[in-house]
């Protein structure tokens, strides 16, 4: 209630309406922290994160018990350990966008932050931070697994380059952003999740079945073009194909989804 009083006092003292005091925007860092918190403060978000962690640990256990000794080294453990995150983090990306509409929190969110583009930016930043955290956690987990591998007679090589690490991270970020793009565009959790998984697969199948499409599929199938990201090396040709499919599956849905979010009436 003090704001009412101070505003009145300020108005009386300055002799002009209190309405002229300046506007301060909410900093993007604060919005990002809020969005990070929103990813984990509901049961679905919390358990999704737990499942990703447990599944990563599970993959390490599989490699240690079943893989040939020469594959039991840090890079393989890490790239395989990130596989569950590659599948599940995009779901978090989808939910970060769609839950505002399906749970009707958009009303409260956009009332407090009417510049909707900043909310979307904060959601994407929060998603990227989660992807970074997932990779950092996987690095720690894989290091432990590699120590065990050394103990049980595996290869145990620690060799990993910055380029390889960077590509593994990029892989996580890209698929999470693709999920977010699908979520922003479709605004409906089940629909966005199903289409996120189904559409690229359908495209892959079509590419294999129909001859004239196969060249196009090689450029536009993100499932194929992103595979080299998890391999030890990647050629410039592979980068080009990856770039084209990212434009189609990530950039385009994000742009259209942002436009739709900016325009949609909130009720």
């Amino acid at each position, binding site marked *: *209630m*003090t*704001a*009412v*009083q101070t*505003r*009145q006092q300020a108005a009386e003292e300055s002799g002009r*309406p*209190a*309405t*002229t005091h300046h*506007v*301060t*925007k*909410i900093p993007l860092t*604060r*919005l990002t*922290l*809020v969005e990070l*918190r*929103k990813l984990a*403060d*509901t*049961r*679905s978000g919390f358990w999704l994160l737990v499942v990703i962690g447990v599944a990563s640990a599970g993959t390490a256990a599989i490699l240690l018990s079943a893989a040939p000794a020469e594959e039991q080294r840090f890079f393989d453990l890490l790239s395989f350990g990130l596989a569950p995150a590659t599948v599940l983090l995009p779901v978090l990306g989808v939910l970060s966008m769609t*839950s505002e509409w399906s*749970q*009707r*929190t958009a*009303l*409260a969110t*956009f*009332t*407090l*932050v*009417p*510049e909707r583009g900043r909310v979307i930016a904060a959601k994407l930043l929060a998603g990227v931070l989660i992807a970074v955290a997932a990779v950092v956690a996987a690095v720690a987990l894989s290091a432990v697994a590699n120590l065990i591998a050394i103990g049980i007679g595996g290869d145990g090589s620690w060799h990993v380059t910055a380029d390889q690490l960077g590509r593994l991270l990029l892989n996580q970020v890209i698929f999470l952003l693709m999920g977010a793009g699908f979520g922003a565009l479709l605004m409906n959790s089940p629909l966005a999740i199903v289409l996120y998984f189904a559409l690229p697969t359908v495209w892959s199948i079509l590419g294999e079945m129909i001859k004239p499409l196969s060249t196009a599929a090689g450029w536009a199938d993100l499932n194929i073009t992103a595979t080299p990201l998890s391999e030890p090396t990647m050629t410039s040709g592979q980068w080009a194909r990856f770039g084209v499919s990212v434009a189609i599956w990530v950039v385009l849905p994000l742009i259209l989804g942002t436009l739709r979010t900016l*325009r949609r*009436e*909130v*009720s």
Partner: protein
Amino acid sequence: MISAEHLSKRYGSHPAVDDVSFTCEPGTVTGFLGPNGAGKSTTMRMICGLTPPTAGRATVDDRAYRRLGNPGRRIGVLLDASAQHPGRTGREVLTLAALTMGVPRQQVDAGLERVGLNKTAAKRRVKAYSLGMRQRLGLAYALLGDPGILILDEPANGLDPEGIFWMRGLLRDFADRGGTVLLSSHLLREVEAVADKLVVIGGGRIVAQGDKAELLAASGTVVKALDMPALRAALERAGLTGTETADGGVVVQADAEVIGRAAAEARLVLLELRPADSGGLEQMFLTLTAGETVKEVVR
């Protein structure tokens, strides 16, 4: 201060809100009255930048809502108490709002206490809240940023009589300390008790607005005669039109003297001749908005 200037919103060919203009001044509670579907919520959403108007504009403290920067510190909004994530606790809902607005976290507990949600309720998920508790949480949400303006859509829904009384006190107090309140309702009685100004809307158009006292005073005169058919004929000769009340009288939009003279000329015995007061306003409200509810149901 809230200002709506010629706000209109069309959905296809249906005008949900049609040329609505009003202002809400600091220190006053403005009651926004109308039947369900009259356009109250749409108008409020347009003020809050959630629905783009087809024509006209709305400002809060002389700025478009979207240009307010951190609006929660200036204007508290409660448009739909049920629009919260059911899986979050009451405290979590307020904590997120506090983080967004940059309000100290300690304010969250104080805010919950102010609206009568105790520690047990604060720890429960919104899913388990009754509508009344959601309204209280929504009010805490609106008040959290310590704003000078409040916009509340049907905040009394789901509150018990004690809760309604408490809320009236809170809003009155807020306005008396210089705050601006815009409060909607479809019940005249509910708003009458707390509002200084009334804006009555029906079918998307403003049908009456002004000072509550003036509207009450201008709501006509009740007249009752021993011989009612003769009275009706006398009023007709004098060019006065009236609407029948439930107890057999007539509410006429003229002052007592004019009616009294008309009756004396016809040598009629009057049983009643008095200002219609709130009953008249209710009559007006019902007449002005009659038929609109049907439109709403079929929309």
